[in-house]
């Protein structure tokens, strides 16, 4: 059972991190905001997120050398193209971001362990964390987070926008 498999501890090797730094950041940012927008109003309730409107976010995937910048507005999430100071920056390694999404790790645990850093408006961070924690899913299955599976679900969602 995949549910019982624990995510192993891994860090993307430094040479790849340096490579990641030099790659364009737009494609991963687009993938992220598209996923978030698809979840909005379905998995992620809109109402508690009102406090996020007009706010700028940065997600730093440390070992992948990725810095994803986006904002939230009335019409959902969109990528940001300038590097001005975000309201909230969340930094962690790839492995830990995945573990958080899969509900395998508690953010406070990662924070105590210095593997998760939240800079800027902490209250926004708490809102994001607690809103995600409050989403009642049948069960998060890490297998559903593979790129193929995500793509598959994205296609299915796009095909049936009203009853997903």
């Amino acid at each position, binding site marked *: 059972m995949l549910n019982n498999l624990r995510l192993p501890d891994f860090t993307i090797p430094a040479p790849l991190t340096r490579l990641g730094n030099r790659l364009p950041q737009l494609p991963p940012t687009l993938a992220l905001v598209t996923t978030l927008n698809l979840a909005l109003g379905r998995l992620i309730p809109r109402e508690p997120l009102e406090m996020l409107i007009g706010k700028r976010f940065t997600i730093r995937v440390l070992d992948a050398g990725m810095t994803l910048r986006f904002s939230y507005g009335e019409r959902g999430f969109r990528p940001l193209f300038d590097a001005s100071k975000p309201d909230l920056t969340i930094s962690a390694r790839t492995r830990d971001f995945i573990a958080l999404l899969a*509900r395998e790790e*508690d953010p406070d645990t990662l924070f105590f362990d210095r593997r998760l850093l939240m*800079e800027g*408006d*902490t209250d926004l961070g708490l809102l994001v964390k*607690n809103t995600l924690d*409050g989403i009642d899913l049948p069960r998060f299955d890490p297998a559903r987070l593979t790129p193929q599976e995500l793509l598959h679900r994205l296609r299915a969602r796009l095909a049936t926008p009203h009853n997903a």
Partner: protein
Amino acid sequence: MSALLELVCPAGGLPALKTAVDHGANCVYTGFRDATNARNFTGLNFDDASIKQGIEYAHQRGVKVLVALNTFPLTDNWLQWTAAVDKAAAFGVDAVILADPGLMEYAKRNHPKLRLHLSVQGSATNYEAINFYHQHFGIQRAVLPRVLSMAQVEHVVKNTPVEIEVFGFGGLCVMVEGRCALSAYTTGTSPNCQGACSPGKAVRYEETPAGMETRLNGILIDRFGQGERAGYPTLCKGRFEVDDETYYAIEEPASLNTLELLPELMRIGVSAIKIEGRQRSPAYVTQVTKVWRDAIDSCRRDPEHFKPTAAWMAELNKVSEGRSATLGAYNRPWK
């Protein structure tokens, strides 16, 4: 064979409640999404729809749901607290956890069937106080502040008809529950009246060349060197300069872990063990509930030979705040 020792687990939201139920909690304790409980953090806690779902889910599986209404109302917001008591009663919760005597009186008068627990925020450390709450308001269970030694807990249990619940695991603070003014002093928000110690709006973390800095309302309260474990941004656990020395002048961040005391807690007749952490995520609730369920079951089977396994201890240490786990006041040779 000792009586059933209930495992009371925290739930800051529906997924946490469900996972606590699924992994063996006997009770889950929750709060509404406002200042009526002492974990009033942005985005946390239950709205009406989710608490109803939670109660249904738990009750179908024979698990009780408790609602903490354990902050202190003031004259201008009294009605918000009484409305919360009414709501809890209407939704059919198994008990409310109260700290304010006025609210207890209200609950007793208006909802005579509603079971009342005395919150740790009520700070009752002796059986006279607990019996007073029992006689006047019909309190059926009291949560003891984390300041008593095992002998003192036993003394309380022996001298009261009220069920005694103790903290078994989780974050510790200076333990003047219901009376701490540190957060109010720094941020204007207190856990006692507004339900939040060090609210998110007052907290700032920043990675600097000297380490990660934590500020509370602009005041530097700690700096963590590379690889050094971090703690919650509360004033009590900050490091301060006193007489040219910078150290944890109030208390060192540590977590309570009483796993090894389980046989003793059962022997003296404690009714329930509480796990701290409504602010934590479902992952924490799952991990901690599993360990405590296993431990309680194994201790009930064979209290004589009970010994916490290394795996349990490692799992609990992993999710703990601070560098050390402690037995707290339970293991104090003096009284």
